[in-house]
């Protein structure tokens, strides 16, 4: 099919637009209005009145970060009702992970109805690309990305690795130097 060309008429500039000063004036009116309205709001709030804030800024480290409802943040491992991890060590998440940041060691489960369970479950957050494929892949709904934790930085690469108890929320994440002597990753 031949390409069709549709000529678009450019609107001719009127004299008022060409003089330019009137348009500048309109722009200035907008910015001056913003300036004075916001200034008044800042002053009124500083005086303790409850008016609309003059700025939409979130003062992040002091005020908590506002995350969307569906934001993909740090992983979280879920538990069954009896408190054991839901993970059955099927390795689907480890297989699908494009960044290869999940490392699972399976072991026999003492429960005869469950075939396997995870001995260790490490996620290297430093490698994770937060794609959410692991969450999609999990057949038993054992992994979520809704810990709403975005402050994940650390001083060493080892400290970027989250072990199973930490992902389950049983143990607080502490830098390796501060951690008491305990196995680097173990069964909870």
């Amino acid at each position: 099919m031949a390409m069709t060309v549709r000529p678009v008429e450019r609107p001719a500039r009127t004299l008022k637009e060409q003089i330019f000063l009137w348009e500048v004036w309109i722009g200035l009116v907008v910015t001056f209005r913003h300036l004075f309205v916001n200034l008044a709001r800042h002053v009124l709030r500083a005086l303790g009145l409850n008016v609309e804030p003059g700025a939409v800024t979130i003062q992040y480290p002091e005020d908590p970060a506002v995350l969307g409802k569906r934001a993909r943040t740090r992983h979280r491992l879920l538990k069954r009702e009896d408190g054991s991890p839901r993970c059955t060590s099927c390795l689907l998440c480890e297989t699908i992970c494009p960044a290869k940041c999940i490392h699972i060691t399976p072991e026999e489960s003492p429960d005869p109805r469950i075939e396997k369970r995870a001995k260790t479950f490490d996620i290297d957050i430093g490698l994770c690309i937060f794609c959410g494929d692991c969450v999609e892949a999990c057949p038993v709904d054992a992994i979520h990305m809704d810990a709403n934790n975005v402050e994940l930085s650390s001083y060493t690469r080892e400290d970027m690795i989250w072990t199973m108890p930490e992902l389950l929320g049983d143990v607080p994440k502490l830098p390796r130097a501060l951690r008491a002597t305990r196995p680097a990753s173990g069964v909870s």
Partner: protein
Amino acid sequence: MSPLLFSVLWTLIKVAFALFAVGLNIAGLLGWVERKQSAVLQDRIGANRADIFGFRILGLFHPIADALKMLTKEDFVPTGVNRLFHTMAPCFSLGFACLGLAAIPYGGVVHIAGKTLSLVPIESPAGLLFVLAMLGLGLHGVMMAGWASNSNYALLGGLRGAAQMISYEICMGTILAAPAFLYGTLNLETMVEKQAGFLWGPIPRWGAFTQPLAFILFLVAGTALSKRAPFDLPEGEAEIVGYHVEYSGMKFGMFLMTDFMENIVVSGLAVAIFLGGWQIPGMALDGLSGAILMLASFIAKLLAVLFVLMQVRWTLPRFRFDQLLSLGWKNILPLALANFLVTVWGVYLWR
């Protein structure tokens, strides 16, 4: 104290006032105003993190923090630059901008304790030409920086700056010819004195009312001459690389300061020629209180002009280079010439 020694001392005091109290002080504050004003009009808060002992006072410590940062940063000089010119360029830029401040009339002649004192740092019958010359010489800093950097980006930025500044230099001269003809002098102090009294009813006889077209054109050309947005093409911080790409540390800071300084000089000229300088309508100022009122009046008008220019800077997008040049050569220059002719005929017929 001999009269000569006294006059030398008095001039030094005035120059120090112009440089430190007006120039460096307001230039430093303008950095804060630029951040805060833009933040408030864009519904933001703006820089407010720098603190001393937990006191933040609306981010007023940020200029100090900036200056400290600039001074302590590494002054990196790339290989292949012409070291002499590379170092001289920011000094030229800032130095001439500061010199321009010296001829601005911050106040008139006052009589204090039996002495007749003038509050203009450099009393020259050609003060206007002096300021214009200093603004023009600032161009050499830009070109020198572009050429000495041994970088094509910097060179092109420098050439852009040169073309822009020369174009608007000519516009500026043509614009100011009309008020200079109207006042019949090139002495900035006399110009201010000519603006005393009232034009019509409560409207003072200020240049902005007797030469409204020249005033608007002057603000446009002045913004372009001091390389401020919307005419900041020589720099073009993020998009089009400017003449100071190869600069770092305080040398870069001096270029930034030059902008503010030239802005102050242009605003000072605008106040002196178009806004009645130190005049307060309907008041005869003399004595010590008069001197203080003169300075206060002048600085208040200066700050008001700077405020408006800053608002324009955060309102308009940057011009394209051909638009910039056609605005200068095809619009401002003919309008300024027409204004000059009308002024000449008007003055001729009035007499």
